[in-house]
């Protein structure tokens, strides 16, 4: 019994170990996986997050003017798969762990971002403007490329410009109306 008495005595001397929360501050590390958030400037709507999400908590809807990404927090199991596999790093997890809510607002526990498309500078088709960081990385070794211009091109116009630049070709006339593949 002596062994445990020692523990008891020490605990008495140490005083209460109770975390004051919610009446006071609590231990809360930065790395805690709290809530999933999407950076609308980075999301390209590729759907990788939907593919790897076990709980089916992510939904992406495409329409002609853009796409909407919705994450339902009441399904999200915070495994960070979406964060890990997101090719552009658009998805991150915050340390906000305050999740308790009343039933009335159950279906409002979402993270939603609307990503609007803009017309391609080459052909005018609505196109997802590429994240600047991504373009800068792609064209890192090419100082003659203006990232701000390239990111506003549709994939086909971008290919066209790349080809023109690489082989020093005459610039062909940009297609008058949209392209089929986009």
């Amino acid at each position, binding site marked *: *019994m002596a*062994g*445990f008495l020692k523990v008891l005595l020490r605990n008495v001397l140490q005083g209460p170990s109770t975390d004051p929360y919610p009446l006071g501050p609590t231990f809360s590390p930065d*790395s805690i*996986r709290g809530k999933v958030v999407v950076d609308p400037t980075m999301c390209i709507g590729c759907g990788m997050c939907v593919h790897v999400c*076990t709980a089916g908590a992510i939904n992406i809807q495409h329409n002609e003017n853009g796409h909407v990404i919705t994450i339902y927090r009441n399904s999200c199991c915070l495994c960070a798969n979406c964060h890990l596999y997101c090719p552009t790093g658009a998805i991150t997890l915050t340390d906000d762990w305050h999740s308790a809510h009343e039933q009335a607002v159950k279906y409002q526990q979402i993270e939603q971002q609307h990503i609007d498309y803009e017309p391609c500078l080459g052909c005018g088709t609505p196109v997802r403007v590429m994240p600047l960081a991504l373009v800068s990385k792609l064209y890192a070794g090419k100082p003659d490329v203006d990232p701000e211009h390239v990111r506003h091109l549709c994939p086909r116009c971008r290919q066209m410009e790349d080809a023109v630049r690489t082989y020093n070709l005459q610039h062909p006339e940009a297609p008058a109306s949209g392209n089929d593949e986009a």
Partner: protein
Amino acid sequence: MSGTKTFSMPLGPVHVALEEPVYFNLTVEGEIVRKTHLTSGHVHRGMEALAMRRNIFQNATLVERVCSLCSNSHSFTYAMVVENALCMHIPERARYLRVIAEETKRIASHLFNTAIQAHIIGFHSLFMHVMEVRELMQDMKETVYGNRMNIAANCVGGAKQDINLKKQEYILKQLELIEPQIREIQDIYANDPMVHTRTYGLGLLPVDDAIALGVVGPVARGSGITDDCRKDSPYAAYGDLDFNVITETGCCAWSRVQVRLRECYESLSLIRQCIDRMPEGDIRAPLGKLTVNSAVARTEAPRGEVFYFIRTNGTDVPERLKWRVPSYMNWEALSVMMKDCNVADVALITNSIDPCVSCTER
């Protein structure tokens, strides 16, 4: 009470002494249990069927939810079996990161089981003390990985997150705090007259029965069987690390708790060795080629050997994923352990195999 008449006594599925829903039908004679019949299935979630409908990335998260106490062992073994099927080699650093995650979970899991034993004995102050010590591990998991239970440390090809120098220092500091406390707890469980009287010689599982029933983990090692996957077929970084396989020869509930607590020391040492020897480098390897292949993998979870079998068919959805958890092997041993025990000891004996219902029923 006459003592000659037997009657059957239901226990569970929702019972204060049992952590999880499980239903015992005991045939008792007076206070003595003569026969145990177990009805399970309350936690059967049809996970193997789910695993065959989800892809290999999703499954890493799914299998982690088989059970939260040994969650890491599932994602760990799952990642290994996929890597075996895809003929992948994971980076050196990831092998060490995996061991750190696994051993961290092992300490927390062992402390939890040990605490629950004190709870069942009725030694509440000891229960609270062990749980408070376990909180150090919980804080460590939360600070390093971001969650207290499902730490999501593994993915196919390596580790999900790196442990930087700052976190390594933090881990070493936490281990420094927890080690003397675990030593103290082990001493209390070994020598405290209350714990000793209640658990020593209780729930006997003789070596022969243990071998016949194929029990694994601390239940086998508590009966003197030297059986540990980390030594038998080394995986991750275990082949390069120094540790001992802990055994006890008492074959009783007391021995099993001693095995668990003494294993915690080995785990502490393993984590320190990993941090010391972990090389720099990548933490994830690119995905291998998906072909038609079958593979198996096994690891030593806190409760014993976890075994995974996968069959791939060239797509990223497995054709068959099957796993067997340690508790699955240990449940049947309860009928040996509970033979002629007191009704009051049923919960205590059940706890001594560190049962995991949600693991068993999937």
